[in-house]
């Protein structure tokens, strides 16, 4: 029997330490069938069938031949060399920032610049998390501090809120779809 190749939509969840990446995925997994801590089956040419993935947040089977894979990157700067490796081949990324204060947003600038410089054309959405904090800064301020290009969406997020988390994920997927549609015009 011929095995159908499995398509993998690779989404990276980025953001500094404490921004809310794990909480975001945890909230999603409460409403979506996201499997976590599973070895990834890989039909590779070299015959290797499976490999355990570090920094794996989880995966969601959409069709028999289509899975969405969520990868998390360690937010600590000392692991920055891993960011490029994890992000290789991604279809899009969600950049989560702690927007509970201007200082917290400023702490994200370096990491965001790193992603922008290394993956300039990859579709992404910025999620301003902790919008329920009394000191939270508004979206415009986040956009201004991070010097976000005008075409990139900055979304409010409360990572503990299911509706909010889902809305951000769907927005990112819509951005990826638009990008794929756009590049398909030039092929």
């Amino acid at each position, binding site marked *: 029997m011929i095995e159908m190749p*499995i398509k*993998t939509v690779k989404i990276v969840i980025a953001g500094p330490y404490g921004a809310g990446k794990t909480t975001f995925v945890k909230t999603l997994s409460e409403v*979506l069938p996201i499997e976590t801590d599973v070895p990834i089956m890989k039909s590779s040419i070299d015959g290797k069938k499976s490999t355990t*993935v*570090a920094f794996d947040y989880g995966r969601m089977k959409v069709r028999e031949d*289509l899975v969405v*894979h969520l990868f998390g990157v360690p937010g600590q700067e000392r692991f920055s*060399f891993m960011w490029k490796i994890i992000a290789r081949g991604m279809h899009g990324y969600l950049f989560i920032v702690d927007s509970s204060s201007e200082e917290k947003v400023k702490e994200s600038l*370096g990491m965001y610049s790193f992603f922008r410089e290394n993956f300039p054309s990859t579709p992404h959405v910025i999620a301003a998390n902790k919008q329920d904090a009394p000191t939270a800064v508004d979206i415009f301020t986040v956009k201004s501090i991070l010097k976000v290009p005008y075409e990139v969406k900055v979304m409010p997020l409360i990572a503990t809120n299911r509706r909010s988390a889902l809305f951000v994920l769907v927005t990112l*997927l819509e951005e990826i779809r638009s990008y794929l549609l756009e590049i398909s015009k030039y092929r």
Partner: protein
Amino acid sequence: MDGDIQRIINEIRSSAEEIISESPDQIRAVYIMDKEGTVIAYATNTIFIGASNTFFAAPRFISSLRGLVSTLPISSINYVLMQGADGIIQLMDIKEMGYVMVISGTDASIGLTRIILEKYTDKLYDLLSKLLNISEKEIIEVINVEITPKDIEDVINFIRSKVAL
């Protein structure tokens, strides 16, 4: 974080600390970077202001340096010496696997520091090679099957079918 990766990073950091201990009066900070300038580990011997900012500045520095060097007839970067008003930067290539960069207070120990860096090159090369190999193995390569806009639409519809947005 995978245990092997963490162990190698710790070893790289220990090497940076050893380099400082070779000349603690002169060397302020040591950075070990991959070939794109991403800082893997660093060590300082004093409170070195802005040490962590280098995480993001270093890739730009290496990229700019490479851009410059590519226009000059000197091949790859082996060694760079840069003098600022308040310190010296010595950057050495680790056999095209990465770079080690030292910041010193004065120019009095430039020669000595260069000898120290050369002494550590082989060890750092081995550690960086191991780190790269393990990192590559640990991260799944996404199978190269093209994703179409329709696939993404299916994902969106799948999510919507699970919850009412």
